[in-house]
Structure formats: structure tokens, C-alpha cells
């Protein structure tokens, strides 16, 4: 049996850190001990009407305590994430993990690295930034309200873009890079598809390697159901078609491996 397990975890603490954005620390038995930045967990609701897991990235990993931090958005009324947001300290929650591959930190060690996060793609970049030994520049994009930005600032330089211009550069993460005339050798990024597309194009233009974390609807979370595929540029060695499983082969892909 492998390192992936499903276990019942206990909520250590939960707080609302922005409009509809929650931060939850969970006590795990084994998941935190085996986890890497860029990986995710499947979080299960306690509602027998809502059966599929909610994939949530690891925002922070405290291996010593065996604890994980998840930062997530409540997407609407009567959703699974709304249910999670109601749990207080001591409540129990089933997690499956750690899942996926995570960011290849070794590819960036000692280099100049952009850690780019957009919206709810910001959280996974925090642990990635913490564990990376490199010249780190976090470039974070928000619609309006900022969250987690101060925690990034403890780990390196931070550049902010907001759509409404209320903080940092008005615009998106690419605008922030241009406005600050930033340069890097490697990119790690997570965020909405249009953002990833722009970053992929930028990396190609600059000729630098770029790893992006993808999102897709999931069922099993472990590579068995083929629910969560993305299109690969080459025939994939596992699927033997142009498909890669986001949950197992990803969620982090070299930007040139996948179609966006």
C-alpha cells in the first residue's frame, strides 16, 4: 500500500481571511508527513447528497505537527465548500491524500524564480515559496481584496496585481511583471486558465521553463476514472492518447506538455 491514504482529520482552527475565503488548519495522521508543495487533497463533505471529493491544494504543510493548511473559496450557497466553512475546531473531516505530483523544486533551486498565483490559485504557491531555496519573486493576482500576501512577504519579494487597481499594479500578473520589469529563469504558476495561457506564452517567448498547476473536475482523484484529463501535446505514455490525468500525472505540468 502506498503513501496515499484516506483518513479522518480534525480541524485545528478555521478563520475567514477574505470575502468567501477561508483558511483551515487540519491535524492529520500521515498525510502531512508525506506531502509536498503543489500537491492537493480530496476533501469529502459529510452530506450523503454530495459525494464527490473537493480537490484543495496544500497551502502550508507542517510536517512536525502533522498539520496541513487549506485555503479555499466558498463557491456558493449549499455547496460543499460552504459546509467546510462551518466547521470549527475539533470538527472532523475526511481527506484523501497527498495527491498529485507537486512542483519540481529541484528544477528551480538556486535560480531566479517567479511564483505566480491568481485568485484561488494563490494558496499553493505559499508552501512552494517556503520550501524553495532560490531567488524568489511571488507575483500574485487578485480581483480586489488581497489575502495571504503578507505571509508571502515573509518568504521573499512580493508583487501584487489587482483587477480593480486597489493594490499594486492595476491588471493581471503579467502586467505586474512588466510594470516592475521583472526577470526570471523558471516559473511556477497556479491560477485560472487565461492566466496560465498568458504565462505559457510569456515563458515560450522568453525561452524559460514554466510549470503550471491545472484544474479539472475530478471523481477518483487517484488516476483511475479518467475523469480529469487535460490534453497533452504528445501521446501520453500511460493513456496512449493525447490525454494526461490532472489528478495523477499533474496537477503540475511543464507548460509545453499540455494544451491550454
Amino acid at each position: 500500500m502506498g503513501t496515499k491514504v484516506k483518513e479522518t482529520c480534525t480541524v485545528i482552527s478555521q478563520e475567514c481571511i477574505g470575502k468567501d475565503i477561508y483558511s483551515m488548519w487540519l491535524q492529520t495522521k500521515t498525510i502531512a508527513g508525506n506531502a509536498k508543495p503543489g500537491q492537493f487533497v480530496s476533501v469529502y463533505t459529510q452530506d450523503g447528497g454530495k459525494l464527490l471529493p473537493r480537490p484543495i491544494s496544500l497551502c502550508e504543510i507542517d510536517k512536525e505537527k502533522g498539520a496541513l493548511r487549506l485555503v479555499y473559496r466558498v463557491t456558493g450557497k449549499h455547496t460543499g465548500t460552504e459546509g467546510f466553512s462551518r466547521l470549527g475546531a475539533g470538527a472532523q473531516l475526511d481527506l484523501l491524500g497527498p495527491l498529485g505530483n507537486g512542483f519540481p523544486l529541484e528544477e528551480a533551486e538556486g535560480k531566479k524564480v517567479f511564483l505566480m498565483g491568481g485568485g484561488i490559485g494563490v494558496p499553493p504557491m505559499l508552501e512552494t515559496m517556503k520550501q524553495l531555496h532560490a531567488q524568489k519573486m511571488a507575483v500574485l493576482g487578485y480581483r480586489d481584496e488581497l489575502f495571504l500576501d503578507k505571509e508571502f512577504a515573509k518568504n521573499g519579494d512580493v508583487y501584487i496585481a489587482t483587477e480593480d487597481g486597489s493594490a499594486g499594479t492595476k491588471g493581471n500578473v503579467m502586467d505586474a511583471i512588466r510594470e516592475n520589469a521583472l526577470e526570471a529563469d523558471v516559473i511556477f504558476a497556479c491560477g485560472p486558465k487565461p492566466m496560465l495561457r498568458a504565462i505559457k506564452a510569456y515563458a515560450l517567448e522568453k525561452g524559460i521553463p514554466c510549470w503550471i498547476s491545472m484544474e479539472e473536475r475530478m471523481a477518483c482523484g487517484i488516476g483511475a476514472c479518467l475523469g480529469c484529463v487535460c490534453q497533452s501535446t504528445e501521446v501520453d505514455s500511460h493513456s496512449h492518447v493525447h490525454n494526461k490525468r490532472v489528478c495523477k500525472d499533474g496537477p503540475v505540468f511543464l507548460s509545453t506538455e499540455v494544451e491550454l
Partner: protein
Amino acid sequence: MSKMSVNLAGVTLKNPVMTASGTFGSGAEYSEFVDLNHLGAVVTKGVANVPWPGNPTPRVAETTGGMLNAIGLQNPGIDVFCERDIPFLQKYDTKIIVNVCGKTTEDYCEVVERLANEPVDMLEINVSCPNVKEGGIAFGQNPKALEAITKEVKKYAKQPVIMKLSPNVTDITEMARAAESGGADVVSLINTITGMKIDINRRTFALANKTGGMSGPAVKPVAVRMVYQVANAVKIPIIGMGGIASAEDALEFIMAGATAVSVGTANFINPYTTQEVVDGMEAFLEKQKVEDINQLIGCVK
């Protein structure tokens, strides 16, 4: 210890618990959670004569008490399957059942013939997938077509043949009888029920394929009803499935007339489900002092 083994067309399963095709890959992923040696059989994801890319995403959506999928039978093709997946499963002391899909009768027969000399125990013919345009359910909604393809497949099959039935029919007994007349050794049911979900905010379908197959606990009452009807209509054994997530669920199917059961969607919710179903059934037999699981098959009339 009560006796848990059952017999499906001459193949002895150590217990009646199998996996539902397409929910368990070829076993590799779930072998990290359950010991495949403990399962009655592993049923693989549907495999075709050539690799299939499947449908665009989103391919899955949640529904109340269940899910929709429109994977579209993505598979690496029979060659890769024989080289990689069968040897993997051979390492375990469990039966290997290969689920076969195709677009034409010839496609199915090609795969069946290719598997004739492979170490697989049974073949399950998927004529009931609602998510592909050709083949699939077209055979599974017409009794004549079903009987004809069953006959063809039987000509090439060296292993016992399971015909997998679609619930999207007016009369499931008619379909089961057609499979039986065609020479099927076993029928399995149910495949998924065709459903649709609409995203009202984006005014579009939740699945790229528009429709998908519904599975999970929500469909269990339909599945139990159909297994009961089929058990009273044909003589060949039945593999029951549709929403099984616990030993109690599995026992409903057995009592309705199934000889074996498959766990599908529940694997996604709890990867240990198959093992828990085996353990829970054993515990039930002990508690109720039933010596042999076979005594429960079809016991509710």
C-alpha cells in the same frame, strides 16, 4: 467462517465482490488502498481494438446522491492492455474480467479474439455505454441487436461471456432474455442511466458531452429492481451493481437475485469500499448464522 465463494459460469470467485468497469482502472491505482488478493474479481476499464481518446472535459459532474460521467471510453487499446495491464493483474490471486467495448460488431469480436489466449477469466461485453455515439448503447437498447452481437461474440470467445445491460430500456427482462438466447453465460447490470445537468449561470451543459451516465447511491433502487426482475426472467447468473457503497447495499442485490456484485462509484468516495464490502458481508453472514452466501441469492421473493 461462512462460505463466501460463488460460481459464475464455471468460474469460482473467492467472494462475490468485484469492481465495476471504468471505476477501478486496471487495478493499479486502487492497489495502493486495497489488497487485490481479497477481491472476488477485478473488472477492467473498457478496452477497444485501438486506443480511444474519449470525450472532451468536463467529463464528470456531481448530482444529488450520485454523479454523471461521460468519459467516452478512453482506453489505451488492446495491445497496451495485454502488455501492461494483464501482467499487472496476474500478480494477484483474483479473477480477471476484461470489459470490452467497440463501435461495430467486428471491433468487439477483434478484441474478444485477441483475448482468447490471454490469461483472463471472463469477458464483459459493454453494449450499454451511453457516452459514445457509435456502438455502445445502440446494441444495448434493442433486443434483436443484443442477441445478434452476443451470438457473434460467443463465436470468438474462449472465456465465459458476460453481457452488460443498459437500464435505459422499457423492459429489462426482454434484454436479459435476448442476451441469454444469444448464448450469454452471465448478465451484469446496471450500466449507467442517461442523465443531464445544466449550469444555469453559464447557460450550458455541465458536461461537454451534454449527457452523461448517472451512477452512485442515487440509482440503487432502480438497479435492485432490475436485478430482481432479471433474476425472475432468466436462468443464467447475474452480476448486480449500481450504487453499492456498503455490505448492506451488496446484500440487497444478492437477496434480489445477484450471484455477484460490483462496486463502482463508491470507490471514488472511499477507496477502501471493496474491502469493506467483503468484510461487512462476512460479518453479516456470521451474525445471521448463514453458512453459505449462496443461501441468500434471490431469497427475497
